[in-house]
């Protein structure tokens, strides 16, 4: 007679595989923990330095750790300036592109235009850096004269705006496309023109999704390194004047860590303090945008 036993049998291989898969899944948590721990550990060393105080760090405008100046604003000012220019360019342009693609373009036109934007999104940032330094800056100097320095935040910010444009346009387009057709029909049925419908009904309805795109764009701009490292300037400079050279947080990390750096020096630990700040800022921005996107999705589902 056949053995007919329906009781659970231990399946060793099956459990082993499941454990391995679980470990693969949980590795991402360890990555985050490792980032927080490693950056935090070195940053703590930096802040434990008797010379460094939080007040100095968050209020000073000079950054020269080796001679006792720890004012992060010297770097933050450049990060803010370049990011602002980038968003100033990419938000309106990206939004306009998104509206065109979502509300106007035919399927065929979209199938041509979307890959072009994807190419724009796929270009390595070091190439954008080359473009900023050797194309945009000379043009700016031709237009505005020599008052524009060879390294300047304006050129870096503008090119960063072009880099972020596809990100903002594709996220905004998703948000616009998620607005139900019935709302557009309602507007048309009241005798609205296409632009009136797009700008006054569809756009406001997609606003939170567009907000999420904006936040991700900011986070990308703040964390972008190569464009600013190449085109914006090499040296902390507390200024918000876009035609001047100044170094961003990311640019500073890249330049200092690229040189000869000895472990445990104040230069070394200070980089981790900056990186921790970067991480926390982008983390908060990303979390907010995810939350917004999820809420937005629920509303129309």
């Amino acid at each position, binding site marked *: 007679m056949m053995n007919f036993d329906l009781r659970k049998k231990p399946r060793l291989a099956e459990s082993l595989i499941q454990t391995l898969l679980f470990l693969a899944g949980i590795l991402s948590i360890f990555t985050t923990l490792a980032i927080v721990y490693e950056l935090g550990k070195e940053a703590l060393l930096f802040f434990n330095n008797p010379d460094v105080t939080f007040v100095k760090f968050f209020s000073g405008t000079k950054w020269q750790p080796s001679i006792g100046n720890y004012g992060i604003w010297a770097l933050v000012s450049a990060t803010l300036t370049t990011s602002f220019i980038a968003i100033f360019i990419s938000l309106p342009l990206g939004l306009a592109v998104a509206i065109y693609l979502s509300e106007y373009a*035919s*399927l065929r036109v979209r199938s041509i235009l979307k890959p072009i934007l994807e190419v724009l999104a796929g270009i390595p940032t070091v190439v954008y850096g080359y473009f900023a330094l050797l194309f945009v800056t000379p043009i700016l100097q031709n237009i505005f004269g020599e008052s524009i320095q060879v390294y300047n935040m304006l050129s870096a910010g503008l090119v960063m705006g072009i880099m972020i444009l596809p990100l903002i346009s594709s996220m905004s387009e998703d948000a616009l496309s998620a607005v*139900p057709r*019935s*709302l*557009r*029909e*309602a*507007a*048309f*049925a*009241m*005798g*609205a*023109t296409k632009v*009136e419908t797009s700008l*006054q*009904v569809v756009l*406001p*309805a997609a606003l939170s999704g567009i907000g999420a795109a904006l936040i991700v764009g900011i986070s990308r701009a703040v964390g972008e390194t190569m464009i600013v490292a190449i085109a914006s300037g090499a040296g902390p400079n507390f200024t918000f004047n876009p035609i001047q050279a100044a170094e961003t947080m990311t640019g500073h990390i890249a330049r200092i860590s690229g040189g000869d750096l000895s472990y445990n020096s104040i230069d070394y630990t200070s980089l981790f303090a900056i990186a921790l700040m970067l991480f926390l800022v982008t983390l908060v921005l990303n979390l907010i945008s995810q939350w917004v996107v999820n809420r937005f999705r629920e509303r129309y589902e």
Partner: protein
Amino acid sequence: MENNNQYAIETQALSIHYGNFTAIKNVNIKVEKQKITAIIGPSGCGKSTLLRAFNRMNDFVSGCSVTGEIFLHGQNLYGKDVDPVEVRRKIGMVFQKPNPFPKSIYENIAWGARINGFKGKMDELVENSLRHAALWDEVKDKLQESAYALSGGQQQRLCIARTIAIQPEIILMDEPASALDPISTLRIEELMQELKKNYTIIIVTHNMQQAARASDFTAMMMIDDQRAGGVIEFDDTKKYSLAHLINAPKITSQADLVKADKEHRL
């Protein structure tokens, strides 16, 4: 084309195609002014397609083309120099599912009027429209709240209010009560009887009972063997030959309605 004052809109040899497929074939109907005309028929026979032809909403469907004519005041709606935006300004529409804008109740009504160049007092218009849609008493204290906070039935009445705010001549209703509970349905039907004093109403419904209860005229649609829809009968609802329409129970109370609705929903 002579324009008989009795008719709000008439069609002549109207056919609608999606690419090579003919969805509606040779429809000839005359819709009387200030009456309610129901379009009934089985699902997929093109009721909504026909309704949407009246205010050129089919323009947004790619591949959709129209032959034949629809006359409003003796003008062909599909004539070369006719502007669809103006057509829709004159012929409003209420959709199957309530679709208020994600704006305040007030803005939902004011928006359409504003884009159409309304010159009068906006507050008055909003109040009047809401009163006509029998919604004023329920929302007068929360005009600035989001329209999404309203119930489904209230939202649909808001959509009606927003449509009458731009003072169209004709109101198209595409199964306006199909997403609503019976009580809300009754209120919409009552509202339609009020509205026909000022407007011509064309309503699509898949509920024959509703057609019998609420309409003055009924167009019955069917599909032929090529799956093209057409109007097979168009007459005064009271004279309608379909037996179950004639035998429709008289509705006197909400309870009757609930019962009738359960029994006869198609």
